[in-house]
């Protein structure tokens, strides 16, 4: 199993090196192969991580990290397929070769950093990996080189870096807390910090946890530090938007979870849970309100991501094992559903040459494949059965009620419904409202439809019957998060 960890953190780098050479076809093919390989390797890790935590050197995988790996690897593979179709429409650019080289270099490095983040053993390395995801994705946001893209990239890099400055402070305070137990020189690995438990100084751990939620929360998109998120998601090239939304936010949430794990081991669960509940409910409220009046298709989906990150924070904050299992499932199904939604939105934007919700009309007549798939992705995001998000959000709500958090659970259900209203009104307008036929009927590329079909299959599978190995993985993750050690 150790070899799998090493491969997962080297294959995307190999693809990045080949992309540097600038042979577009070769980069495309290799990115595709590496994406699928990483997905296969992540799936292969599932049984091992459900019972054990394989590790080698400074790499380590346990149940929680494999959950995040699955989401990231799936989107890496899906984005690799989608990009082939997406770049075809850019071929008319006079600087296409340069654009494609930068695109593939960036996408592979981005995937590499996001796969490395859940696999490194230690808070310091985790911070470094998250910081690399920031700088690489900021360049990807600026890739289209328009005024809007430059503005979005600048806001993103500045806010996310400032947030990660706070995250670095959290890392250092946690280092201090650990050094009172583990001695002056240790490497911030997870196991000793978790084993130290209540012996860590409480004030320092409290401080570190709040700083971590605020700092890494900037990258998660939690209110009030979410402001970069809609800009970056709407201006990035579509495959990158999908990766930003489905994986990057989740990977940053993974960092918050690690701090949660240590903090609840030291302080007891009630303080960290309350912090997460407050941030989660506020994020959900903000997102639900912005979703109601959103004119820009990609910003609409970006606010939907803020909504879902709020749901994740609330799910952990509720504290019930059932809700925690729901959160872990939610990470994977949200990656699949949000990937599909962005892929579909990307096709709509390509076809109609606008991101304005009011201009896109009669989508169902124009795009025979993408429009229904986009509709299903939106329904999945709204947690309709039989999709996986129905199962995960159902578990979160049922867990909340079981843990007697009735008020928070009711707020959760109401706000998710408001968000559904916003999403569905915009979607039905775009797809069903008849409008003047401005574009010819037909799909731009089969490469852009295929990953949506795969995503739909994942959503249905996880909604109807999650594989037994995955259920074991979630059970293990829940017991780890509840303080069952590593």
């Amino acid at each position: 199993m150790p070899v799998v960890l090493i491969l997962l953190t080297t294959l995307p780098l190999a693809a990045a090196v080949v992309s540097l050479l600038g042979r577009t076809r070769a980069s495309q093919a290799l990115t595709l192969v590496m994406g699928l390989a990483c997905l296969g390797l992540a799936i292969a890790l599932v049984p091992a991580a459900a019972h054990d935590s394989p590790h080698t050197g400074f790499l380590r995988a346990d149940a929680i990290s494999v959950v995040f790996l699955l989401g990231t690897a799936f989107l890496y593979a899906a984005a690799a397929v989608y990009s082939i179709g997406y770049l075809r429409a850019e071929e008319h650019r006079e600087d296409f070769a340069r654009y494609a080289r930068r695109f593939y270099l960036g996408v592979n490095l981005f995937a590499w950093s996001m796969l490395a983040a859940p696999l490194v053993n230690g808070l310091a390395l985790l911070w470094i990996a998250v910081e690399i995801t920031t700088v690489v994705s900021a360049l990807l946001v600026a890739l289209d080189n328009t005024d809007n893209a430059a503005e979005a990239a600048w806001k993103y890099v500045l806010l996310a870096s400032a947030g990660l400055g706070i995250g670095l402070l959290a890392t250092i305070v946690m280092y201090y807390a650990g050094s009172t137990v583990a001695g002056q020189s240790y490497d911030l690995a997870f196991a000793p910090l978790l084993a130290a438990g209540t012996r860590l100084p409480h004030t320092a751990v409290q401080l570190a946890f709040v700083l971590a939620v605020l700092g890494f929360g900037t990258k998660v998109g939690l209110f009030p530090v979410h402001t970069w998120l809609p800009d970056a998601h709407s201006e990035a090239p579509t495959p990158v938007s999908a990766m930003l939304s489905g994986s990057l936010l989740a990977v940053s949430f993974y960092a918050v979870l690690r701090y949660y794990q240590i903090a609840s081991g030291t302080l007891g669960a009630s303080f960290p849970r309350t912090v997460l509940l407050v941030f989660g409910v506020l994020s959900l409220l903000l997102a639900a309100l912005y979703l109601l009046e959103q004119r820009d298709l990609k910003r609409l989906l970006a606010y939907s991501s803020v909504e879902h990150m709020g749901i994740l924070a609330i799910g952990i904050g509720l504290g019930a094992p059932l809700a925690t299992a729901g959160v872990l499932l939610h990470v994977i199904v949200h990656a699949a559903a949000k990937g599909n939604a962005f892929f579909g939105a990307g096709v709509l934007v390509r076809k109609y040459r606008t991101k304005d919700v009011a201009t896109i009309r009669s989508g169902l007549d124009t795009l025979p494949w993408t429009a229904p798939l986009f509709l299903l992705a939106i329904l999945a995001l709204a947690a309709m059965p039989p999709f996986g998000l129905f199962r995960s959000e159902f578990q979160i709500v049922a867990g909340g009620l079981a843990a007697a958090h009735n008020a928070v659970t009711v707020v959760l259900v109401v706000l998710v419904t408001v968000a559904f209203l916003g999403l569905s009104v915009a979607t039905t307008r775009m797809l069903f409202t008849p409008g003047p036929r401005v574009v010819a009927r037909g799909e731009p590329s089969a490469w852009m439809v295929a990953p949506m079909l795969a995503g739909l299959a994942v959503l249905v599978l996880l909604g109807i019957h999650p594989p037994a190995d995955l259920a074991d993985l979630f059970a293990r993750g829940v017991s780890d998060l509840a303080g069952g050690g590593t």
Partner: protein
Amino acid sequence: MNPAVSPPGIYAGIANGLAVLLLLTEFAMLRAALLRAQVRLYAAQSLLVSILAVVVAATRHLPELYVLAGLSLALKVIVVPWLVSRMLRRTTTEIAGSGALGVASEVLVAVAVAAFGFFATSRFHISSPALPTTALGLGVAVILVAFVLMVVRRDVVSQAIGFFSLENGVSLVSLVVAAGMPLILEVAFLFDLLVAVVVFGVLMQVHHARSESLSTTHLTRLRG
């Protein structure tokens, strides 16, 4: 007043003095109008951090800190300021765009924020064998003033310098509470900073190429 409290020794005095100077350079950055002056102040501040690292290394016998001080000197005193001023030479702008507030109000806000950070930190009762905890409060104050700088300034260079100096504040905090952190991690942090600086530089150039200025006042298209 507890009579058992001994007056600070030479080491604590030097360390606290350096930490105060760090905070003062942060304030100087806040009121510097010339972009080049800001870059120089950043270099001076980074130099102070390196000196402090050497002082800690010599007094507390932590030899890895010498390496860290050397790297931080090379990177933050020489490479980063050089990269930023090279970019500045290519642009014609010399004076930072006027801030969101007047200089006097900016400094007042910063004083209030710094005092809050300093006194709030003392409530956490974090003590460290490496440096007096006064330096910790000063480090937090530097970080908060750096945030004020990033918020009130309206040009890309000041905002970026604000972020870099925020990192200096974090370095000061880490010297106080995490002096023994393994060198490999410290080096990785520094390397990461270098990558971030390069990306900041690229995006500053993209911004300059698109808008013909360093100002961020017109970055208001994306909202809602």
